[in-house]
């Protein structure tokens, strides 16, 4: 996987006090690739995403994005470079409508200044119109047009997760980090999500690192799987190989099951 990687983690370690959360994790992903990151609870999956998006700073190791070192960059700089993410619990802006939530994600793309905005000059008007159009395209992509003006806290949880997903997409990222996007979704919503993920992969060519607990979804969709256990990389490879790997089975089901 060395060639053409857009995002690469090299021996990333992270510790909180005496707790080793990540221990020398290395992984990489290419454009248009869907890399699933799995592991039992507390394996450090979300911590990997938090390191990439700059919320945590690794104790050692490096993270490179498109050739640039982003290990110690601030979160908003990393986001502006083209790494978007979703959050496990949606983390939407509750007092905003769906459209407003997505417009926030356009922040880095909007070049208007505060004085011009205060006077609402014609170019601010033009920018607002253009970015609403961009947001509308994303809404169409995830089929949320009907709910565009609803306040997100009035939406059912499954739909809120899709809004969070759309918000990340509205950033027009090169890499998309998905933190358990299917958690809390019903079967139908999961199928929609799977469809969206495949369309992003095939139509937009965005690299995705996908933290997921639904093994069926992972087995069906992922190009590759990276398994973490207690902060250590356990296995990496094609889904059917990895999911049969005795060490992976042991990590999930306990060691006797592997024997």
């Amino acid at each position, binding site marked *: 996987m060395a060639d053409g990687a857009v995002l690469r983690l090299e021996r990333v370690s992270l510790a909180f006090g005496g707790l080793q959360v990540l221990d020398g994790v290395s992984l990489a992903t290419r454009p248009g690739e869907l890399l699933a990151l799995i592991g039992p609870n507390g394996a450090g999956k979300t911590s990997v995403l938090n390191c990439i*998006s*700059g*919320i945590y700073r690794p104790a050692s190791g490096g993270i490179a994005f498109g050739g640039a070192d982003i290990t110690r960059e*601030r*979160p*908003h700089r990393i*986001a*502006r470079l083209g790494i*978007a*993410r979703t*959050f496990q619990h949606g*983390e939407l*802006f509750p*007092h*905003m*409508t769906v*459209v*407003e939530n997505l*417009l*926030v*994600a356009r*922040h*880095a793309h*909007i070049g*208007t200044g*505060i004085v011009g*905005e*205060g*006077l*609402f000059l014609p170019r*601010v*008007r033009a*920018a*607002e*119109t253009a970015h*609403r*159009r961009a947001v*509308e395209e994303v809404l169409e992509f995830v089929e949320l047009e009907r709910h565009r*003006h*609803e*306040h997100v*806290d*009035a939406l059912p949880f499954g739909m809120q997760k899709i809004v969070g997903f759309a*918000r990340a997409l509205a*950033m027009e990222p090169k890499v998309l980090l998905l933190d358990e996007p299917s958690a809390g979704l019903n079967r139908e919503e999961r199928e929609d999500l799977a469809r969206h993920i495949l369309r992003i992969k095939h139509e937009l060519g965005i690299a995705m690192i996908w933290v997921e607990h639904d093994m069926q979804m992972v087995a069906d969709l992922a190009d590759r799987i990276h398994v973490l256990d207690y902060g250590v990389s356990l296995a990496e490879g094609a889904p059917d190989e990895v999911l049969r790997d005795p060490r992976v089975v042991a990590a999930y089901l306990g060691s006797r099951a592997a024997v």
Partner: protein
Amino acid sequence: MTVPRASGYFRTRYAEDFALLDTRTRKAWAALFAAALLVYPFLAGPLALDLANQVLLGAVGAVALMLLTGYAGQISLGHAGLLAAGAFTTGILFKEFGAPFWVTLPASALVGAALGLIFGLPSLRLRGLYLAVSTLALHFIVIHLGAEYETKRGFSTGILVDPPSIGGWQLYDARAWYFVLLAAAAATVLFSLNLLRSKTGRAWRAIHGREAVAGALGISVHRAKLSAFVVSSMLTAVAGCLFAYFRGFVSVEAFSLFLTIQYVAMVIIGGMGSILGAVLGTVFVILFPYFIEWLMEAAGLAEELAAVVFAVNYSAFGLVMILFLVFEPQGLVGVWRRIQAWFLMWPFKQKPLAGTK
């Protein structure tokens, strides 16, 4: 900006999404309201005119605080200090250099912006109560400097400021002031609404309680916080400048911590996260003491309570604030929205859906 509520109204252009007034009905109401505001000073008596002037002046400061606290979620107790900074900048420039209005106004704005930047810095590290305490420092520093100036220069009772002349037009009477303050309040409201429907306002709302998420979406949290402090402080200092001219007198006594509490009350009673709320809250807080006085007179207790009228006022004010916090956290604007929803739903008696605004 606004959410379509009624049926039979469809938007066909993106610009309609961020229009301040979208339907013809709303435009008509707004025009009617504007006309009423313009006619008001010719119909109102001296007291009603003075009250209107106080409300208009207060609204500038309240909207400024609403941007900072109600939208960006940054608590500040330095509001009276910032008003004082604007008022003293104006007073000192006038007294020492005979500076005209068109110099003192931008100078006050500049001082306000600088103070906002400096006292916004702690917000990068502190949150909530700790931030509130750090902004108190601003209050005491400005008040201390103002008092020092007063005593050093021998203006121990305060600085007298002559009425300004705007375009060769001396501002003496209340009616002229009304139009100046109306213009200032309208400009502040419009400027704020414009910011809120574009990038900066969305960033402010995004950092409100969701800093990590805002960062992950490409918003510089530091920049958003500091810009909120700078814009809010600048507008507040402008209000302070107008205050100096309007009262014709600048003294530290006018800028007690109670003034800060009053502005915080305007924002809370009006309804957090709403410009309309800031204005409604200002009307309420300014008229409230007059209302209490009127009540006391109507009850025939004016004589008996004359000695404790301030105590009665303060305690009634405190009580009302607690009642709002407990029973109507969305403030007056929440009441207003429920009235609207009631008419919208009539004759059906459903409760409005949760989360609808």
